[in-house]
């Protein structure tokens, strides 16, 4: 067997061939690649080969150590330098580069983005226009109004209702599909008319930010702050994505290096990062009462950093390291942004629509059997400890299914003028901090394991209600009226 890796030193070539000889099992990648990785002591490949080859692995390990003893540097270093020398020789023969004429504007913009004095105002601008104006005002305002009122309430709902009432003569079954909590009138309407426009606009904004190369620049700007909560700058990617969908963001915590960082990021996403559906509704709900909006923002951001700081103190493990390549800034391509957005919406819908339908069916069944009323009775003391009216118990129950579902319920309550400003602020804060939606709970279980997830959920439950309770207490003691 001839080695094709002819850029290596003589002793390395020899060791490589000997290791290839020792590999008897069949592998998904070539034996030469495996041997090269074994020489570099790649932990993943070492475990794999140890499992496959058993006894023979000892011989391989000896070979690697004997070869390494001949060099003053680690083999990983020697091999990389060997390879680089070969690459440099090839490049100098075949590539000529013109005098550098890098894009002046993109360099200048990049400098502004990473300079602390101009960088933070740029973050604020992007959040204001990308998130608040585009997702909040346009998505959850204009688009939701149009789809919900014009399309659903005026056209689809009356049509489906009369269709179902014509086909199914029984009131109970009619209620399942088109009643107050019906599969169509509540489940499908919430998903299509409220969640889709908000999440869709968010994913468009996120894809554009992602493709422009801005995220690594944001990461380097925030690395120092994130280190204080046990994370590194790279964690801005799941955190910003979490403002769209916490479930998707919990999956994306895989890009973080250590288990410690993954645990902290998962907890913070579940506790203090509101998803776009929730964010859109809460912004719409609280923007008429600026004092409540600021209190909500202050408490949620405050808990994000406080809990992050405390978790980082408590969890053992090494400090995270931050390293990223900074790609050049580019104008996002329309077609790329659209195809990414579409595939994300598709994923989201496969996750969300069934859950909304199941939630509607559960509520219907719960009401029919009286279980729903029983749970609400059970929740009432908890709700009144937060100073909220009994009707808010229904919202909490909704919140168990999905936080955005709960926020939408809060929206209904507010439009009936059932809440004071104090109650509105408490309800919004409690709901934002509250347990993740069912989908996120399932992803947390998949990524972090059942035990960690149950512990986190219990903690979040206590934090959400504890915060609501203390706020109410504070309002009463100091006579605060928002």
């Amino acid at each position, binding site marked *: 067997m001839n080695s094709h890796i002819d850029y290596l030193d003589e002793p390395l070539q020899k060791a490589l061939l000997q290791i290839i000889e020792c590999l008897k099992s069949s592998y998904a990648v070539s034996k030469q690649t495996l041997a090269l990785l074994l020489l570099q002591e790649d932990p993943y490949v070492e475990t794999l080969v140890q499992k496959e080859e058993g006894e023979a692995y000892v011989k391989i390990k000896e070979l690697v150590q004997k070869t390494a003893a001949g060099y003053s540097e680690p083999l*990983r270093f020697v091999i990389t330098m060997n390879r680089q020398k070969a690459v440099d020789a090839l490049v100098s023969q075949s590539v000529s580069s013109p005098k550098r004429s890098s894009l002046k504007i993109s360099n200048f913009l990049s400098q502004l983005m990473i300079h602390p004095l101009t960088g933070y105002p740029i973050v604020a601008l992007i959040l204001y226009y990308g998130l608040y104006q585009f997702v909040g005002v346009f998505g959850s305002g204009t688009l939701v109004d149009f789809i919900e009122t014009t399309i659903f309430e005026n056209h689809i709902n009356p049509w489906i209702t009369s269709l179902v009432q014509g086909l199914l003569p029984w009131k109970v079954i009619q209620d399942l599909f088109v009643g107050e909590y019906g599969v169509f009138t509540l489940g499908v309407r919430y998903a299509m008319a409220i969640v889709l426009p908000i999440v869709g606009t968010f994913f468009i904004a996120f894809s554009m930010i992602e493709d422009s190369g801005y995220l690594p620049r944001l990461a380097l700007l925030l690395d120092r702050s994130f280190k204080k909560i046990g994370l590194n*700058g790279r964690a801005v990617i799941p955190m910003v994505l979490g403002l769209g969908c916490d479930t998707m963001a919990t999956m994306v915590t895989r890009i973080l290096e250590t288990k410690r960082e993954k645990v902290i990021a998962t907890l913070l996403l579940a506790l203090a990062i509101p998803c776009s559906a929730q964010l859109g509704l809460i912004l719409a709900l609280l923007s008429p009462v600026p004092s409540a909006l600021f209190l909500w923002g202050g408490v949620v951001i405050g808990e994000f950093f406080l809990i992050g700081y405390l978790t980082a103190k408590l969890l053992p493990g090494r400090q995270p390291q931050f390293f990223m*390549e900074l790609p050049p800034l580019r104008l996002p391509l329309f077609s790329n942004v659209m195809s990414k957005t579409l595939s994300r919406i598709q994923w989201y819908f496969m996750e969300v629509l069934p859950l909304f339908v199941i939630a509607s069916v559960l509520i219907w069944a719960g009401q029919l059997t009286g279980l729903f009323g029983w749970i609400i009775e059970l929740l009432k003391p908890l709700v009144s400890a937060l100073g909220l009216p009994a009707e808010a118990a229904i919202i909490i129950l909704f919140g168990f299914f999905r936080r955005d579902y709960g926020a939408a319920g809060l929206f209904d309550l507010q439009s009936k003028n059932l809440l004071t400003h104090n109650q509105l602020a408490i309800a919004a804060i409690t709901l934002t901090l509250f347990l993740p939606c069912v989908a996120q709970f399932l992803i947390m279980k998949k990524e972090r394991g059942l035990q960690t997830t149950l512990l986190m959920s219990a903690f979040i439950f206590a934090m959400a209600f504890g915060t609501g309770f203390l706020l109410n207490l504070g309002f009463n003691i100091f006579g605060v009226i928002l």
Partner: protein
Amino acid sequence: MEALSSKKTSSLKNLGQLSAGARARIYALGASKSDIQAKLLAMGILPGRDIHLMRKFPSFVFQVGNSQFTVDREIAQEIFVCHPEVI
């Protein structure tokens, strides 16, 4: 290549000791933290290549070849440099 030995780094400057805007040549990579050395090797930040330190705050930003990278101080301190004419 003898000169690249990472064991002689005590008398050298690391990236954290340069000022922003400086140009230098990478002389060695710290060997005490092998996980950091592995990351630098994987990114192509290698002895003998020229480095341009662009920023030190809020994070380190530098250019090697045609690529720009950002790292924290802990990693920057493992990149040892010398005057471009030394090697």
